[in-house]
């Protein structure tokens, strides 16, 4: 083996004979793509995170303009820490905040509401009719008398529970937002708007008046926080690179062998981001994770190059020759492994959610780039630098020192140990299957599921839910009617009937629609007499009763009116049963006059997403395991080999779902890809190990002996790869974005456990399934042919 092999593949000659030109090309490309990479923008587009093909979402988007005024607003609760709202200081601060919000760009000023805006009024029935006024008393001067008058006005208004907290310790500034700025025509920049809320409202006024706390909720704020969360990923990238570098140095003991793979992998990340930007993509909370995977995969393949070079250099070859030999040995298995990763990612295309499809594209692109950077650029650079003496010595010493450990571990293939391993695996499988029964679909936590329960946003959200009559989980049923018919008696009665049907279901808190408005106002128009709390058959009375209905409840040509259903939570069962009841009602009662369409609101979107996820889940599992099994079969031409490799993966998948069930992580848009990624990348370990194992068996060794040699040659690389991949994702656990943390946790588990499964369970299965004699006989017969 110490003579330089002579056969040079064409590809190798092409690359290594033109290395200067290629390196210059790499430099130019890297500068260009790197420039684009740093300019990539965070993008938390709502539409990309939902299943656009689902009929509910199709309905929602079709009627988006009609529902515009319904959902997009922020509520800013100004809380008095000591005492209540009836102090001069509090009211002064509230006035300043109201004025400040008025001038924020993006706010629909005509709809702005606070105790200080003229549209917040009290009304009272008198013998002559109505009397009323603004809630802020005329000639308000902050005196005790005026504050008392204010209190009376608030009680006479219907704002307690809406603008004023039940305990009178906080009030709300309600700001509807424009999706697109009517002056400039530009879409609302959620990131910038959210930042303005933080700086101009929260920071400024909590500083100027130390007795107040400010709580802000609303879709725009949530998206703003998500965008901010994407930014914090940069820190994780730094930590991951640092940890990986240290680990790599510990592994290779060679500065060049450490820095060059890291450098090549970073180049891969820059390329990937640069190309994404050129293709018009932004960085959403899902695709922002792909660079981590690209980096980790790059490193784990880079390790193979460093390892191979060190071994060749130890034999005495110069850097150029060592690099060429490493390339020659690795380019085919490397490409194969990466292609199987790519197939794993492609199964994500089954999920009809754009962010996930983008994730598949970004990850597939990343893997393709890793082939170029870590299988071409990396050996080219190394051919100039070479492995240091320390690194070579490390490789030389390593073998003998570690032998005892590998010897011990080779017992996993021992006929006495293997049954115990299988027993443990079976018990583990049983336990996993038992706990996995409780796994839920969808988001399970309260508040905004994208963010952590203890995030500022979710604390603010909890504050508003506790102190005001609101629910965070709203299902919107759209009622479509002919033009100008949305308030007909029949329509209102049908909506009322649906509402009552739903309110009688567990999980439904309350509901609201034009029907409620009509009843309340009809009562008010009849001197506030509750006996008139009913929908009149007289259309003139109905029309009068809805004249001042909130704009969100009626579209411009009165052809669409929503029913808002407030739910107790957004658990999948709750959503499923409520949605099923609405569909039943719609099937029965939809007609030319009124058609009941699902669904909008956060609960409607989640119901649709859950349906898509549930149906995609099994298909994706079948497909990803099918692809992996076929790839394994094509490589090894043996069903037994497929079983040896795939069964440990299956165990990991089951245990992963059990962990999800126990730790309250549901199957959702974020966690479904984990299965594909975990299996797609996880199969590499089994392929590496089985390939070596088969080689050594065919060389005539017994199973345990062959496994010992397998561990000796590749065990360390496999374990290192598992740890590197784990490190690549483990930092996500600290992400402010909840689903990123969930993904990080689960992927970390899957990467490590798949590695353990390959090293521990694969040989045990081989003990029962592989028959070395027959394998050798078959190989011999084949060779003879």
């Amino acid at each position, binding site marked *: 083996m110490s003579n330089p092999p002579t056969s040079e593949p064409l590809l190798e000659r092409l690359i290594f004979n033109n290395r200067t030109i290629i390196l210059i090309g790499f430099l130019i490309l890297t500068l260009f793509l790197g420039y684009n990479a740093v300019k990539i923008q965070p993008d938390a587009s709502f539409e990309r995170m939902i299943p656009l093909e689902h009929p509910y979402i199709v309905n929602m988007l079709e009627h988006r303009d009609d529902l515009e005024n319904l959902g997009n607003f922020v509520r800013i609760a100004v809380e008095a820490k000591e005492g209540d709202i009836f102090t001069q200081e509090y009211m002064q601060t509230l006035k300043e905040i109201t004025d400040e919000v008025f001038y924020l760009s993006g706010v629909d000023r005509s709809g702005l509401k606070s105790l200080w805006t003229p549209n917040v009024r009290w009304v*009272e*029935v*008198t*013998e002559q009719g109505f009397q009323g006024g603004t809630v802020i008393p005329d000639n308000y001067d902050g005196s005790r008398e005026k504050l008392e008058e204010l209190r009376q006005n608030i*009680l*006479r208004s219907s704002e*307690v529970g809406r603008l004023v907290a039940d305990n009178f310790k906080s009030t709300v500034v309600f700001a509807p937002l424009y999706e697109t700025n009517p002056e400039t025509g530009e879409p609302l920049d959620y990131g910038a708007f959210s930042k303005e809320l933080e700086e101009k409202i929260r920071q400024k006024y909590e500083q100027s008046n130390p007795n107040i706390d400010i709580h802000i909720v609303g879709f725009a704020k949530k998206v703003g926080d998500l965008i901010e969360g994407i930014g914090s990923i940069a820190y994780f990238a730094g930590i991951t690179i640092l940890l990986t570098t240290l680990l790599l140095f510990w592994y290779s003991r060679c500065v060049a062998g450490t820095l060059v793979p890291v450098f090549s992998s970073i180049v891969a990340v820059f390329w990937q981001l640069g190309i994404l930007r050129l293709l018009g993509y932004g960085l959403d909370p899902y695709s922002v994770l792909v660079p981590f995977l690209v980096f980790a995969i790059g490193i784990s393949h880079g390790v193979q190059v460093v390892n191979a070079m060190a071994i060749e250099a130890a034999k005495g070859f110069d850097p150029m020759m060592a690099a060429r030999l490493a390339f020659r040995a690795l380019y085919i298995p490397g490409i194969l492994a990466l292609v199987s990763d790519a197939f794993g990612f492609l199964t994500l295309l089954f999920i009809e959610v754009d962010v996930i499809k983008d994730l598949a594209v970004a990850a597939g692109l990343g893997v393709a780039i890793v082939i170029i950077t870590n299988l071409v650029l990396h050996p080219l650079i190394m051919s100039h630098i070479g492995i240091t003496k320390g690194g070579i010595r490390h490789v030389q010493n390593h073998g003998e020192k570690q032998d005892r450990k590998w010897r011990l571990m080779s017992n996993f293939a021992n006929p006495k140990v293997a049954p115990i391993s299988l027993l443990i695996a079976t018990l583990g499988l049983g336990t996993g299957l038992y706990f996995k029964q409780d796994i839920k679909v969808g988001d399970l936590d309260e508040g905004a599921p994208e963010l952590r329960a203890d995030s500022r946003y979710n604390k603010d959200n909890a504050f508003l839910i506790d102190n005001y009559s609101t629910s965070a989980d709203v299902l919107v049923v759209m009622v479509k009617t002919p033009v100008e018919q949305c308030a007909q008696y*029949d329509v209102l*009665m*049908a909506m009322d*009937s649906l509402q*009552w049907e739903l*309110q*009688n279901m567990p999980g439904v808190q309350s509901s609201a629609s034009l029907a409620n408005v009509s009843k309340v106002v009809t009562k008010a128009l009849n*001197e*506030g*007499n*509750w*006996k*008139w*709390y*009913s929908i*009149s*058959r*007289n*259309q003139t009375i109905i029309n009068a009763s809805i004249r001042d209905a909130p704009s969100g409840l009626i579209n411009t040509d009165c052809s669409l009116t929503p029913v808002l259903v407030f739910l107790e939570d957004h658990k999948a069962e709750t959503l499923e049963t409520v949605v099923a009841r609405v569909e039943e009602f719609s*099937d*029965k*009662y*939809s*007609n*030319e*006059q009124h*058609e009941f369409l699902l669904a909008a609101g956060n609960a409607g979107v989640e119901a649709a997403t859950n349906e898509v996820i549930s149906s995609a889940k099994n298909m994706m599992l079948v497909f990803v395991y099918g692809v992996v099994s076929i790839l394994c079969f094509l490589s090894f031409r043996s069903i037994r080999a497929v079983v040896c490799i795939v069964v440990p993966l299956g165990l990991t998948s089951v245990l992963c779902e059990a962990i999800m069930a126990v730790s309250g992580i549901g199957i959702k848009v974020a966690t479904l890809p984990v299965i594909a990624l975990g299996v797609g990348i996880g199969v590499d370990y089994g392929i590496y190990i089985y390939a070596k194992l088969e080689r050594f068996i065919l060389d005539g060794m017994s199973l345990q002996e062959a496994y010992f040699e397998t561990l000796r040659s590749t065990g360390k690389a496999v374990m290192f790869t598992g740890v590197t991949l784990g490190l690549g994702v483990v930092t996500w656990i600290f992400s402010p974005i909840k689903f990123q943390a969930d993904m990080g946790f689960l992927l970390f588990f899957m990467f490590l456990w798949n590695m353990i499964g390959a090293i521990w369970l694969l040989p045990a299965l081989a003990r029962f399934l592989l028959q070395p004699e027959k394998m050798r006989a078959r190989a011999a017969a084949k060779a003879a042919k």
Partner: protein
Amino acid sequence: MAKWLTRKTIGAICLGVSLAAAAPSAIAVEDVLVKPARDTDLATQNLLNDAVDLGERIVAVGERGHIVYSDDRGETWSQAEVPVSVTLTAVDFGTPRHGWAVGHSGAVLHSSDAGETWQLQLDGVEAARIAIAAKEERAVALEEQIEDAPVEDKGDLEWALDDLMFSLENLESDLEVGPVNPMLSVWFENDSHGFVMGAYGMIFRTRDGGDTWQDWSGELANPQGFHLNAMTALKGGGLVIVGEAGFITVSDDNGDTWELRESPYPGSLFGVLDTDNPDEMMVFGLRGNLLISSDLGERWQTIASNSTATLNAGAFTDSGGVILVGNGGAVVSRASDKHPFETYFRSDRDGLTSLVLVGPERLLLLGENGVVHTNAAGKNF
């Protein structure tokens, strides 16, 4: 059979999704006069408009045809079988077994089993037809009268005829829309004689337990068609009806003829209470107005309720106190006529429509969010 039907329906839906989208099914939601009240646990948490205390049993009525009854002073409730789901506004029992409940769409319901099951006796369409027929008859009579009348009386009679024709036209155009107008109050003397009344001055009388009804609006001097909001019988046999815009009318012949009383107050009155004294009554309504008369409404005395909340219902306590409830969660009470009235606004500020004295120092309040037990001041225990 039902199962088979469901399966068939589902099959049809699966087969014909595109068809269904093109031609949605034509079933309409059932009319509230036809659709029975839904059996629901929410009846006692939803709007209840009126309650009657029969001693053994309390019966309350409310939105969506809800009628609930309790035999343990309001601790637990059962829901009655009701053939309609209109908003019910008032309930009264002529005997412990025979009761009537009224509501929107002109619905009049009768129960002969102490409120457990109810039958529809009259609806707004039938009521309007009765009223139209009666008014047409009166119009004919009036025209004859005008012809025979001395010239100096003709003017007044023609005015009356105009009023009559106007209200007749209103009734007819309303009837074209349907049973638009609600009944707002009911009073029964026994199991056969009683009155139901409501919006725009409509009032009907029965003397055969509801088998037949007579339009009685001609006997009340109510040409402007004020809403009739409440009716009660006083000690000594006098009857009184109060309504919109301070309308007060009394009868001393058990309802045959009615005499308009000059109103001491121009705002709407929502309730009238009898006392232990003959011909004495307390009426109340908008903005905390409270008046008392000891001579069947001839003279009135204003009492300071010390509240501006609209008062909807009230009751005298055994110890001579008064408790009234109203909008905005107002509970207005005094321990006796020596004490001033005090107002307590309940913290939920739910509108209150009715109350029952369920025990010493114990109230059952009814309102927009159903029933609640409180102490005598209306505070939660």
